[in-house]
């Protein structure tokens, strides 16, 4: 096999055709200081699918997501969303940041946080009307938080905080949902509630991309996987790309033997 074929087969560089993919990334390199965190990554997300971004700690999963949204500036690379530039399509994207990234002591109520999802529609001074409040309430109900609207956000459990963040994203009414570790540190009930909502979204034809760290649930939760360890290590439908060799390449020696055996069994 020639180097070129080998590189191509491992999907190091996908063809230039990105079409109208909900999210297409080309040649993305991001560095903190002089250390590349994400290196030369290409990614093409499938419309209407749920994609998990997986990889070991510090592999650049969150950074990839943030760079795709322009939250951190990439060193090089291009992003298209539904075939257009990011600025033209911001209102079609909803981002759910990591729960730990904000100050939960901030003086605000649950319903105010969800209302932030409507700021795009409301503009600077647009009045909040009944229909907006109804929408906030509906989004809260969708994640099972309808009775918590008046709570101070600091009083919520970790799982409840995560649901509020999801409700805020729902309020945006976007077509592409990007979630950063939505299941990190949440209770089992919340995890079920969130995955149900995400599956509903997918069934409505929306596209969902989530940074995920629990390998045991990848198969049951997601349609596609994207493996990354600073570089892209694989991409595609779960049954094709979520394989033991691919995982071993992604995690190196960091994947315990037992885990590998279990995953191989699941794949069986």
């Amino acid at each position, binding site marked *: 096999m020639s180097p070129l074929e080998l590189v191509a087969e491992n999907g190091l560089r996908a063809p230039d055709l990105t079409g109208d993919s909900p999210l297409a990334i080309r040649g993305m390199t991001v560095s903190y200081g002089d250390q590349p965190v994400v290196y030369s990554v290409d990614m093409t997300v499938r419309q209407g699918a749920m994609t998990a971004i997986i990889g070991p700690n510090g592999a650049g999963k969150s950074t990839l997501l943030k760079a795709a949204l322009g939250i951190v500036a990439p060193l090089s690379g291009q992003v298209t969303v539904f075939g257009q530039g990011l*600025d033209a399509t911001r209102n079609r994207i909803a*981002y759910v940041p990591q729960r730990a*990234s904000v100050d939960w002591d901030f003086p605000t109520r649950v319903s*105010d946080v969800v209302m932030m999802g409507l*700021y795009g529609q409301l503009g600077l001074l647009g009045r909040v009307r009944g229909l907006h409040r109804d929408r906030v309430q509906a989004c809260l109900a969708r994640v099972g938080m309808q009775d918590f609207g008046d709570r101070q956000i600091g009083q919520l459990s970790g799982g409840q905080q995560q649901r509020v963040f999801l409700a805020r994203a729902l309020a945006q009414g976007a077509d592409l949902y990007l979630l950063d570790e939505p299941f990190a540190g949440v209770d089992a009930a919340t995890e079920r509630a969130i995955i149900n909502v995400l599956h509903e979204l997918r069934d409505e034809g929306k596209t969902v991309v989530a940074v995920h760290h629990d390998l045991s649930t990848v198969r049951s939760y997601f349609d596609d996987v994207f493996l990354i360890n600073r570089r892209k290590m694989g991409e595609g439908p779960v049954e094709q790309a979520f394989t033991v060799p691919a995982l071993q390449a992604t995690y190196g020696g960091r994947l315990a033997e037992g885990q590998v055996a279990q995953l191989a069994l699941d794949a069986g």
Partner: protein
Amino acid sequence: MGAEFVALSLPPILIGTLAALACALPGNFLVLRRQSLVGDAISHVVLPGIVVAFLVTGQVSAWPMMLGAAAAAVVSVALIEGIRRLGRVDAGAAMGVTFTAMFAFGVLLLEQSDTSGVHLDVEHALYGNLESLIWLDAVGWSSLLDPAALSGLPHELERMAIVFVLTLAFVVVLWRPLVLSTFDEGYARSLGLPVATLGLGLVIVAAITAVAAFDAVGSIIVIAMFICPPAAARLMTNQLVHQVLWSLVFAAISAVLGYVLAGYGPLWIGLPNTVSAAGMIATVSGLILAICAVAGPQRRA
């Protein structure tokens, strides 16, 4: 009594109150963004700004000095950011380096230049001269309706009123982006909000307020009002709108009560002279914070 109050006490009370309100308003966001000490840093660098302005123009007049102070504030913010980012130094230390060096430069410049004929010294920049802002044309409450007398009001009143309206407009119009970028910067960026520009805008508004206020009321009040009323208000409520309203109430109480205590308090306990109004206003705001820290309904996280 009425005539004396309107002529001697009403203008400083109004000016002090407007200055306190104008500082407390952006102060709410500074405190929530863990940038409380930006106000501290800006207030310190006002000194070199006014000294340079004096050396350039050769006179002590309001506008050149305010421009000089504003320029110094911009320089200091640029320096702090430069040191923080390029030198990879934490924000607190970067501020400490910048404002002490600039203040020292101002003091040295002041000592080296001939300011004997003019009223320009470090104490003035720190304490202001609230007590001297009197309304000579006033003969009583009726003067408030007399256009001729009104034109004799101290210019500081007009200036602080304009600055207060400006800060109010800034906070009201940009309320949603400010809240969003303060609470969840990553999410705000994902919506395409110019988060960095907003942050800079907030600091600039704080600088304008600090610069306008220092001449009338001195830097102590500026620092105290940026921080104490918002911090006390945070201990009263869990809702940002209510917090901002509480902070305005506390700022106004500090200004009025502080002025009255400084002007009349010593007489009540038999001391011959008044005491510094600027110092007393800061003290009252500190007492309010202390009370809220002990008894505020939302004092604990």
